[in-house]
């Protein structure tokens, strides 16, 4: 495929800013980068791969921080409002993309940019103001040190109330490795410590307003595809019923029933009080209203009330991380802790997982600290300490891998490649286990969400205990997810759309002639480039592994007696990827992908 400027989006510019020199310049999006990587995650990965070499430390000024949107952003395609943030992660050392909803991405697109590339470090805290083509570096004096909501309000007050802000809280300022970048006050680019990278650059926030019209190549064709995909969203029970009614917390009871709800730091897969922290209970007790990201007909977001305070969330992963993972059954406390994390700019998954790890260290007598499974006393203050990098909080802020190693029990950290695992015990879902182990950004449920077919039956139910065929499904979903993150669309669309639908949306919006197989090939290219980055950083097949705990059977519940059978799937996975036995992409495969 060759792109020309007639292929819409190919003519969108990249904005490169140096915080060191406080200068900016516009660069063209090369047609090759567009056709090979599209935008969003793919484009960001390419930019980071080219510029960030192994000697560049994640929190050094030479690391890049890329905000990227895709060819569907701000169009009428459903869920086309997300933003990908790409960098080298201070938590994992891998390439990392963190994806966030809200309304930031469309403003960047309307300002005329496919990506914002941030390099260098400001001599004192600043925020960046992008007002269509006008770029300003403004002092963050009076904003630095403030939490996310007041920071957002202050920045908007000083710029334009119709602009959108992506900013860090105290956690990011203190370069805590669990720090998130927040948009719309409560939507988090949570994972991997991307907020710490922003903090290391002395960048408090990016505020952007765009007024340009986003054109599409073939309006009639796009309308046709949109009619179809909207109908599919309406037909699907997950996107039309479960998510709008309960949000992602609908998964609590389901995961618990299947014995997949990690409890007490993954020591068990069922939580006795799951009902009390479920989506159903959230709806009954704390629900205020739904929240929709830009252009989203699903509306899975929640606004909740806890202790007379309103805020965004909590999502399923947060309910788990600050709930069953720590043995906590107090729903209102969990919601309030989630609000606190949003204000501090903390990733709730890694935070909760690290707290659970610390609680188990205490349980096993390896750490003396006032922490106990199920008890919330003092925990809110400890969360503040994590963000402020104080005392035990500072140690916890390094993430569970470093924390458990510090106390000579690395086996108690539930991570892959340094990233804490999310809310599904892999022992009861073999494909998802493989997905965790092979994820390029570490323990993540979103690189290939095999919970879809293995538990939810989407698009069809497959035997969750079988290992045969799972490598193929993981590869398929990893490639599709990489492509989807480059368009950029929300992962929840996969419950309703087929592969061709994504290709059809892209083709109609840009004019780029593309089908499902070509789209997957782009995803595969992105996946391999991420792999090459990680190999260059010193990662190897040894890192495609799971914590030793998952070789021990779960004692009870819906996944009792099961372990993760990674060794039965990994060789086939490498083979399907076109990688050698050491997990290195072969030259033949790289040539096919135009990466050699």
């Amino acid at each position, binding site marked *: 495929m060759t792109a020309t400027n007639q292929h819409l989006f190919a003519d969108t510019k990249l904005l490169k800013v140096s915080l060191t020199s406080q200068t900016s310049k516009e660069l063209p999006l090369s047609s090759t980068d567009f056709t090979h990587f599209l935008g969003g995650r793919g484009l960001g990965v390419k930019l980071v791969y080219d510029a960030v070499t192994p000697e560049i430390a994640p929190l050094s000024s030479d690391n890049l921080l890329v905000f990227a949107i895709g060819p569907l952003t701000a169009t009428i395609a459903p869920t086309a409002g997300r933003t990908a943030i790409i960098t080298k992660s201070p938590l994992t050392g891998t390439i990392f993309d963190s994806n966030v909803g809200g309304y930031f991405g469309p403003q960047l697109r309307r300002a005329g940019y496919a990506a914002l590339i941030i390099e260098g470090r400001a001599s004192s805290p600043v925020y960046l103001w992008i007002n269509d083509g006008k770029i300003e570096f403004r002092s963050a004096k009076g904003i630095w040190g403030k939490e996310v909501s007041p920071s957002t309000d202050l920045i908007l007050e000083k710029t334009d109330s119709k602009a959108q802000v992506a900013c860090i809280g105290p956690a990011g300022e203190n370069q805590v490795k669990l720090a998130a970048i927040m948009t719309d006050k409560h939507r988090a680019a949570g994972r991997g410590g991307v907020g710490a990278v922003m903090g290391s650059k002395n960048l408090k926030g990016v505020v952007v307003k765009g007024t340009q019209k986003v054109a599409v190549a073939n309006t009639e064709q796009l309308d046709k595809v949109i009619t179809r995909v909207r109908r599919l969203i309406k037909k699907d029970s997950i996107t039309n019923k479960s998510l709008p009614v309960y949000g992602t917390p609908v998964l609590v009871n389901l995961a618990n029933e299947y014995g997949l709800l990690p409890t007490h730091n993954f020591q068990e897969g069922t939580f006795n009080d799951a009902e009390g922290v479920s989506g159903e209970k959230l709806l009954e007790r704390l629900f205020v209203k739904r929240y929709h990201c830009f252009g989203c007909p699903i509306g899975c977001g929640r606004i909740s009330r806890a202790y007379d305070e309103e805020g965004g969330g909590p999502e399923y992963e947060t309910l788990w991380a600050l709930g069953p993972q720590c043995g906590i059954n107090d729903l209102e406390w969990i919601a309030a802790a989630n609000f606190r994390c949003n204000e501090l700019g903390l990733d709730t998954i890694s935070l909760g997982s690290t707290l659970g790890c610390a609680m188990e260290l205490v349980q096993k007598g390896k750490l003396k600290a006032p922490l106990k499974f199920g008890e919330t006393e003092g925990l809110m203050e400890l969360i503040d300490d994590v963000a402020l990098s104080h005392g035990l909080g500072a140690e916890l802020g390094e993430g569970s891998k470093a924390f458990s190693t510090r106390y000579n029990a690395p086996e108690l950290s539930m991570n892959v490649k340094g990233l804490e695992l999310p809310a599904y015990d892999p022992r009861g879902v073999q494909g998802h286990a493989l997905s965790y182990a092979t994820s390029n950004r570490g323990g993540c449920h979103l690189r290939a969400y095999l919970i879809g077919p293995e538990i939810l039956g989407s*698009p069809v139910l*497959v035997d969750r205990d079988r290992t045969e065929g799972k490598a193929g499904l993981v590869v398929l979903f990893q490639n599709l997810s990489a492509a989807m993150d480059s368009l950029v669309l929300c992962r929840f669309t996969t419950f309703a759309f087929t592969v061709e639908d994504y290709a059809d949306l892209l083709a109609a919006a840009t004019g780029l002639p593309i089908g499902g197989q070509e789209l997957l090939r782009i995803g595969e290219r992105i996946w391999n480039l991420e792999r090459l980055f990680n190999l260059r950083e010193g990662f190897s097949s040894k890192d495609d592994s799971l914590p030793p705990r998952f070789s021990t059977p779960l004692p009870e519940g*819906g996944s009792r007696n099961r372990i993760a059978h990674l060794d039965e799937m990994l060789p086939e996975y490498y083979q399907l990827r076109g990688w050698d036995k050491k997990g290195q992409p072969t030259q033949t495969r790289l040539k096919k992908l135009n990466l050699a």
Partner: protein
Amino acid sequence: MPVTVEALAKLIDHTRLKPETKRAKIQELCEEALAYEFASVCINPVHVEYAAELLKGSSVDVCCVVGFPLGATMSEVKAFETKESIRKGATEVDMVINVGALRDENYDLVRSDIEAVVEAADGKIVKVILETGLLIDDQKRKGCILSKEAGAHFVKTSTGFGPMGATPDDVRLMRKTVGSKMGVKAAGGIRSFKDALRLIDAGATRLGTSSGVAIVEGYRWAGYSDAWLEPDKPCWTCPSRQASLGKQPKEVYLWYKERCVTCPHREQNIFND
């Protein structure tokens, strides 16, 4: 892929039989049937006229259920329902067999009940729903034979309101009993393309489902990986797994459960997953 996406769609009776169905849902059903080129829309008699109007001139049939869902109305009522439905535009009729009479071995009554509908249908396709979940295998076989003798065109597994949905075991048995020239419709609990393919493989020539769109759309994924079609645990598709003492006559329930004890897959029947 064993069949094309289009061919799979052509086997589906796009179904909406819930009592709370509003006209807007019937309209949606018909629009989807036209878009996907399903075999028919399968609806309750009160919606026939409206659906026939919406589908006029298309290749999509209007299939109407009769004596539904219990099959316990009088033959005269079933015949009247059939006649009226056809007058209003139905081109296919799915009637429920007199299940009680079949279990009573009152075969003349069962046969004449079907004959009354076949006659009232005046040459239009008649499918006979056995409600297999209320029967043991010998009764299912007898129901098939009587349906064939009475001149019906299809035998059909279930209403979707009974104790069990369609299973490959039942479809296989029905196909073997009626031979290759009579139709076999699988209906009830068909929610995914994998369910659909299993039933087609067992001998079904028509599928009744309210998940037609999901089945066809889901089937598109099969073009991207063979892994979707990896076999599942045998118990997943076994009718004995679906047996329910609360919904079935005791002797029928026990008949199903006794099969588990001698099943060659019994070693795998450990936990309910």
